[in-house]
Each structure stands twice: as structure tokens, then as C-alpha cells.
């Protein structure tokens, strides 16, 4: 980890239903380059909304998000260019069912980065080999298990060579016996120095892999610190209450 701030969030607010739902209230946060930040909190606390604001899948109601010192909430910014550098992994994988695994992985590099088919496929095969799925390159998503789909979703995002990876509960839709294989890939990625923001209920992962843990409740960051600080010595009553339930 170094001290370069990759994502800087300032006064972020997000409202839904015309202001009736205040999903995020005045969030300030920094994501440093090479850091693994784990976001935890009860259901409905705004974890997904926070993560989805980082690449503007949700458009903030107020506040700024700086990615590489560029305010991507600015209207004149082409968000599509920045999203190429921000990989995202969803709870439900969202693989493209009409394409093979290789097709899924090479589409964006070819269409957006102008890579040739050979180049894109070479990179894809390297990544597939690393996650042990090279033999499934020609398969369709529907032929894979949940754990395999999620590993593909991760390497699909990696094909764009992102600077940060955003994970929204990547193991929540998986059968228990498949959680491990996905966490393993994420762990490896973390060790290679990838900057990661991970929303998860896997407290073991948070403790072992996280550099920093953010605890959210009611659309606010209630407490943040190292895994040690949060899990062993939480300061806020809300944090204690939550951890008592999940640990």
C-alpha cells in the first residue's frame, strides 16, 4: 500500500424516490492505491448504493467523487472512459448469456480498447488459466456453476486492466461450498496489490484480507479502522450491536 489516493469521496449524498429515501448521507471516504477496503453493515444501510456511486452506476444527489483527482460527478466528464479503469463484480454475476466465456472476456477490450482478437484472447486465456478455468473458454455461462460464473465475472473485469475493483456481495448468491473458490481468487488479487472495495458479509475475509474496514448504518459511515480495531475493539454501540449479531 502506498499513500496515493485513488478515489476521494466528499460529501456524498444519494436520495431515492424523490428524497423520501436517504440512502447515503454525507459520506466522506478515501480509497488508497493498493488498499483493500471492506464495507460491512446491516441490510439497507447503503453499502451497495455507496459502491455503485463510485462508478456512477447510481448518480449521486450531491457531493463529489474524485478518481485519479478528476471529479467524475462533473457533467463535462465522460464517465465511460473512467469506468474502463473501474472493474465491477456483481452479486448475480451478470455474465452475457449469449456469448461464450471467451466472448464475454474479449468484448470490451476489443470494442473499447481497440485490441485485436488475438491480443484480447491471449490476455483472456492467461487470466482463465490463473483462475483454473481455461478449459471452459468455449462454454456458455449457463453451463457453469455459480462459483465458476463469479470467477469468470472477476476475470472479465480484469481484462480491462482496471486500477480498482468494486465487489458488491460477490459470494452472497453462491452455494456455501462455492464461496471459498471465489474468495480465493479475490485474496490472490489483493496480494498482487489490486485496489479493492468489497461489500461483503464474509467477516473472515474482511478480517484476513482487508486493510481497512468501513462499517455503515443508516446511510452513514459509523466507524472505520483496521480489521483489528473494528472486530476486536469496536468503539460505537451500533458497530458492537451489528458485530454481536454476525460474528
Amino acid at each position, binding site marked *: 500500500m502506498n499513500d496515493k489516493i485513488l478515489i476521494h469521496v466528499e460529501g456524498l449524498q444519494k436520495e431515492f424516490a424523490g428524497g423520501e429515501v436517504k440512502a447515503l448521507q454525507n459520506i466522506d471516504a478515501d480509497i488508497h492505491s493498493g488498499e483493500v477496503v471492506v464495507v460491512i453493515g446491516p441490510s439497507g444501510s447503503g453499502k451497495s448504493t455507496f459502491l455503485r456511486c463510485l*462508478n456512477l*452506476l447510481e*448518480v449521486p444527489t450531491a457531493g463529489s467523487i474524485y478518481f485519479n483527482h478528476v471529479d467524475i460527478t462533473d*457533467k463535462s466528464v465522460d464517465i*465511460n*472512459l473512467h*469506468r*474502463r479503469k*473501474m*472493474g*465491477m463484480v*456483481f452479486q*448475480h454475476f*451478470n*455474465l*452475457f*448469456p*449469449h456469448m461464450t466465456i471467451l466472448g464475454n472476456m474479449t*468484448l*470490451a477490450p476489443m*470494442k*473499447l480498447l481497440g485490441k485485436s482478437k488475438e491480443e484480447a484472447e491471449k490476455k483472456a486465456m492467461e487470466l482463465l488459466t490463473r483462475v483454473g478455468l481455461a478449459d471452459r473458454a468455449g462454454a*456458455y455461462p*449457463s*453451463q457453469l456453476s455459480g462459483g465458476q460464473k463469479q470467477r469468470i465475472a472477476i476475470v*472479465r*473485469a480484469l481484462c*480491462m486492466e482496471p486500477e480498482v475493483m468494486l465487489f458488491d456481495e460477490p459470494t452472497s448468491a453462491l452455494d456455501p461450498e462455492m464461496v471459498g473458490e471465489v474468495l480465493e481468487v479475490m485474496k490472490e488479487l489483493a496480494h498482487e496489490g489490486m485496489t479493492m472495495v468489497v461489500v461483503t458479509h464474509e467477516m473472515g475475509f474482511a478480517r484476513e484480507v482487508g486493510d481497512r474496514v468501513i462499517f455503515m448504518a443508516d446511510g452513514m459511515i459509523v466507524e472505520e479502522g483496521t480489521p483489528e480495531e473494528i472486530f476486536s475493539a469496536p468503539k460505537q454501540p451500533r458497530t458492537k450491536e451489528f458485530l454481536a449479531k454476525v460474528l
Partner: protein
Amino acid sequence: MAEALQSLWTELAADFHTCFIEKNRWKYLTSGLGNTLLITFFALLMGVVIGVVIAIVRSTYAKNYKEMKPGFGKKCLAVANWFGGVYLTVIRGTPVVVQLMIIYYCIFVSSNNGVLIGAVSFGINSGAYVAEIFRSGIMSIDNGQFEAGRSLGFNYVQTLRYIVLPQAFKNVLPSLANEFIVLLKETSVAGYVAVRDLTKGGDIIRGATYQTFMPLLAVAAIYLAMVMFFTHLVNILERRLRAGER
């Protein structure tokens, strides 16, 4: 009894000869059928082009309008959506024969290319129905597909083009094929404006021979055979697509 049957048979054979063999009248039916198929095919093609555009506008409006930042793009979308709505209402709210006559007498005044007039008229008509088919096809694609596309860096149009439309198209293929069959029968009113389609061909024979039963029965039989044939193809297609889903 046998004699009566015998004479009925000779009579029918003679009628058949008058209707189809004499003066090569069968050619009215074959050329009419050719025109019917041409009109149907090009009408559907045009309908798909119109339908896809309107479906994109209307589903984009339904999904994204509220979230869009105010600006020129948002205004354009609102206007396009309004025009699309008007088109759908007018086309689906008026009889196709009236539309055909308006296009023939008011717009194509100087042309007598029947196939062209038919294809354009039925294409404009079909576009309204195809638009609804495609709209439901696009709306049926999980929002996660849009989000996955956008998160990789594709813009909205690219996401539609590479990710959403191919899936939507596959989903609506059976409905589109059905639209082709409906259209095939619907074009039978093209004769109203002197387009020589299959029905008109039968009608010309009727006028020339004063025979009613034989030519019209032949026309009906040909439509039926066509519809059964294409229905069979659609069924095969549907089975293939379902097998492809695995």
C-alpha cells in the same frame, strides 16, 4: 348415381380448365403469390427497422428518463418518445385498408409499383406491432445486463448494440416470425388499391371466367398452405432456440 358423379366430375374438370389452364390463367396466382411474399417480406423488413428504433426510444424513455440529467439529450428523448407514442396510437387505431388507401391515393399518387406501395404501407403498419414486440423484448432483459455493460465502460448505445439487443432479438424471434404470418394474410387487402397480390389474382380470374368457387378456393388453399408451412418453420425455430438455452 354413378352417372351423376361422372357428370359432376367432368363439370369440375371443365371449370378447372377454364379457371387455371385456359389462357395460362394460373399465372395470375403464381405471380400474385410472388407479389404477396415480396410485399410481406419487405414490409416485415421495414417494420423491423421502424420497430427497433421506436422500441429503443420507448424503452429508454421508460427505463431512464427520470434519472437523466436535464439537457438537450433528455429533451430529444422526450420528443422522440412523444412521436413514437403518436405513431403507435394512430397506426393501431385505424384500419389497415384505410392506411393503404391514404398511402396509395395521397402519397404515391404517381407510382403504380404495386409491390413498393404494398411493402411501404404494410411496413409502416407492421412497424407499430413490431415496436411493441421489441419493446417487451428489451424490457425483459435483466437490468444487470445493462449494468454489466456500463460498468465495463460501454456507453448506453454500445450496451444496447452488443449486449441487450442480441439477447432481445433472440427472445422475440418467434413473435417476429408470427408477425410475418399475420402480415402474410393481412396483405390480402392490397388489391383494394390495384396491387396484384395473390387475392387480387384470384379475383381477376373470377372476373374473367365468371367462376367464383374455384379461384377463391384455390386462393384460400394457397394461403393455408403458406401459413402452415411457415408455422411449421416457426415451431422448428422455437425448438432450436429453446434447445440453445440449455
